[in-house]
């Protein structure tokens, strides 16, 4: 099974993943990337500061970019019961 690497980027902060994880395919790697980002965002929320520009960059074994997971891919925001993804939400004054 292939190994995928999950690098973290948030503004000037870049954390290089040199270990990677062995997963079945890119679809599984993408699900893993989403889980990783949700965990980091959850910790952000606990700390009281949520950094919305955080992204996970997925690389394959050849260190070619195989995917990108961003805030709007992993979180749906709701306001008064109305769903909105982050891009839409950012465009309104209410968020």
């Amino acid at each position, binding site marked *: 099974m292939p190994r995928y690497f*999950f*690098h*973290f980027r948030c503004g000037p*902060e870049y*954390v*290089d*993943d040199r*270990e990677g*994880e062995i997963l079945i395919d890119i679809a599984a790697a993408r699900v893993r990337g989403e*889980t*990783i980002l949700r*965990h*980091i965002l959850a*910790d952000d929320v*606990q*700390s009281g500061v949520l950094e919305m520009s955080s992204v*996970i960059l997925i690389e394959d074994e050849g260190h070619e970019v195989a995917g990108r997971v961003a805030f709007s891919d992993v979180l749906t925001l709701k306001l008064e019961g109305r769903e909105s993804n982050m891009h839409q939400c950012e465009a309104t004054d209410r968020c």
Partner: protein
Amino acid sequence: MLPLANGRIIMRYADRLDLQRFVNRLLSRSLLTSDEQDAILDLPCHFATVKANRDFVGLREYVDHVSLIVDGIVGRFDQNRDGLRQITALHLPGDMANLHSVVQPRATSALQALSVATILRIPHDALRAATARRPALAEALWRDSMVDASILAQWVVNVGRRDARARIAHLLCEVATRLGAPNGQNGFRFAFAVTQFQIADATGLTSVHVNRILRSLRESGLADVRNREVRVLDWRGLIDAGDFDRNYLQTEIRPEDKLRILEAL
């Protein structure tokens, strides 16, 4: 009778040194007579090497021996219905990883070598015989098991009540202390042959998150974790970051506080 092969004879001497290390560990908390100490040193045992990432005790497996860790790091695992694993304990050199199996031989959690590990296997029967006539020795082993329980309780607090940074700082403080780090000494180094993935499994985080926190600890001048080695840069700062109080490890028992409660009738 000693086998004739030189290598095996040397090994038996080494085995005895490893058992002496375990006796010293018992003596750090309990009072034992020389006969009781000899009963441990005379235990039959055999040496085994376990490859990294290999389970040597499976979930629900019946075991007939305990495993004294001589070298390497061993993880205790549990898992959920989907097979997702969580490390619930780290066993370091000198630990009797499954001492409780003497009285509960069916494994309720698995043991896996996280790095190449060397262990001494000691038959349950021999330990039962050694303790049957020596209640104070049984008491010392019981007390040693209670340290594992105390560590587990702290790990529950770690994953339940500490944020990611504090969890990892606490884990580093604990491992450093268990490996004999002098209290308050900066610059203490220790081998920590685990991956970020395994640290994540022990702290309920993801490996990327662990990676990010380790970088933060390094940039804050608290600890440098690289190439399977940890260097404590600022012991006081790391303790503060990890909300760490070493008392639960019971590593510094004063001579007058060592216990011996049970005696033969």
